[in-house]
């Protein structure tokens, strides 16, 4: 009799554990989605600011052209090409701003300040997103999650490779 109780206990525990693990993974997927939404929003805003800068007096015609192209590319890029396009935009912005020429006019100053605030936020957002993705990939590699296919049909999240030092 005791033996049956024991087996029943094991089965109940196993069911609970699987359910708990599925919840855990679901939560992680959720975290990946929200952190990506956050990062995506910030990157979109950066592209918009970059376009503004391209139109403003900060940029000479040549860098303006470069910047506009890079910003559009970043906006239109598909998920997998996204990080490369964004790095391209970072590079273009870096080229323009590294020259360190004097900026006059309050609109231009506002633009540059907004850009630097956004850059700080993006840096943090990338860290949050990368952490969520790594975590999810790690958990999904665990045997329990693989054998019982707890991930369901959710796609494996892609790591966002961003050349942080270009920012």
């Amino acid at each position, binding site marked *: 009799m005791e033996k049956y109780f024991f087996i029943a206990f094991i089965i109940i525990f196993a069911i609970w554990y699987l*359910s*708990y693990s*599925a*919840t*855990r*993974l*679901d*939560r*992680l997927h959720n*975290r990946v*989605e*929200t*952190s990506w*939404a*956050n990062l995506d*929003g910030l990157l979109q805003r950066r592209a918009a600011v970059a376009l503004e800068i391209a139109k403003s007096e900060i940029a000479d015609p040549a860098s303006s052209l470069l910047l506009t192209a890079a910003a559009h590319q970043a906006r239109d890029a598909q998920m997998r090409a996204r990080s490369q396009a964004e790095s391209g935009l970072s590079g273009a912005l870096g080229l323009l701003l590294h020259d360190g020429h004097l900026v006059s006019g309050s609109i231009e100053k506002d633009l540059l300040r907004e850009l630097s605030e956004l850059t*700080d*936020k993006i840096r*943090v*957002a990338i*860290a*949050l997103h*990368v*952490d969520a993705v790594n*975590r999810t990939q*790690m*958990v999904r590699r665990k045997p329990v999650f693989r054998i019982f296919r*707890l991930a*369901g049909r959710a796609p494996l999240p892609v790591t966002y490779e961003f050349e942080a030092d270009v920012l």
Partner: protein
Amino acid sequence: MNQKKLRIGLVCPYGWDTPGGVQSHVRDLAEYLIAKGHYVSVLAPVVDEEKAPEYVTSAGKPIAIPYNGAVARLLFGPIAFARVRQWISNGKFDLLHLHEPAIPSISLLACWAAEGPMVGTFHAAAKRQKAIFAIGPILEPVIEKLTARIAVSEAARSTLTEHLETDAVVIPNGIYADRYRDGEVVEKWSGNTIGFIGRYEEPRKGLPVLLEALPIIARFAPDVRVLVAGPGESKEVIESIDPQLRSRFEFLGRISEKEKADFLSSVAIYVAPNTGGESFGIILAEALAGGAAVLASDIPAFDSLLGHGEFGALFKSEDPRDLARVAIDLLRDSDKRRALAKRGKEYAQRFDWDVVAEDIYSIYEMALVGSSGVTLSSENRAWNRFLGREGS
């Protein structure tokens, strides 16, 4: 901060009544956010509920247990857990900010019980511990629920990476820099003085190292005096001092904030000979902001806080001779000392709450993206999704 007003729940794992780094961090942050117009509620273990400020909710009386080499006042157990759950469901918070969620106290319970945007701040820096590996598998899924993690120092961050394999954003602890900016030079504390603030009875605060170094310092700087401020029984300590040196010591007892500012402006050197157990070293940030030339042991937290010696002098931890050597060097060269103090003071502005709280707030904003507030966690998330039910 020109944003909408939030409902923020802060959880402090240590007893509110006992002074400590985490407690004062939580208190200052809560008061800063309240001043900005947010609704803030702090959940903490409290002994005397009468004395606690209005924004603090008690989760019960803390239990004193030895943890991580010191006696910590923590709280856990079913009754505490029930209170944590009640606080979360009554609070209707937009966001929870849990402090030190990896130690067995109410922050961990809150992390377990809640779901939604949660930010965790890790204060402690510890060496690699076997015990953590044993409880890692239990801790991992809980810590994983945090939307964003903050570490107060590089040391705390590497502890987190080693123990829980997760990364964090470094945001330092905050100080009210303007409180220390305009300290007045007090005659009786100035001259060739070495200042020390802290619970000097605790060996890890390093007063014994200073005691040992003093005879050497006195040989080269005959008029040197040591001023010790902070709570404690000075009698025993005084008896342990060599009678010939006793007259050089002055115990000031607990000092007020204003006195602290004056103290830091007056002393020639502020010394922090701590032998370990520090993760951040808030007192050093305050000493720098107060315009003191800082001399500290080279434990990792201090080394990184002082920019590897750029903003304050370092000596080899637990080495009285090295302490004496650097102290004498500073006492003799007042130009060098002043330049060091000036660099330090400018640098300390980055620890001001105006900067630090802004950084914390931008983490909040990121955690809030696409969320609809904090709820009690449901272990049925996956089932709901599977059955096609909406919500959560």
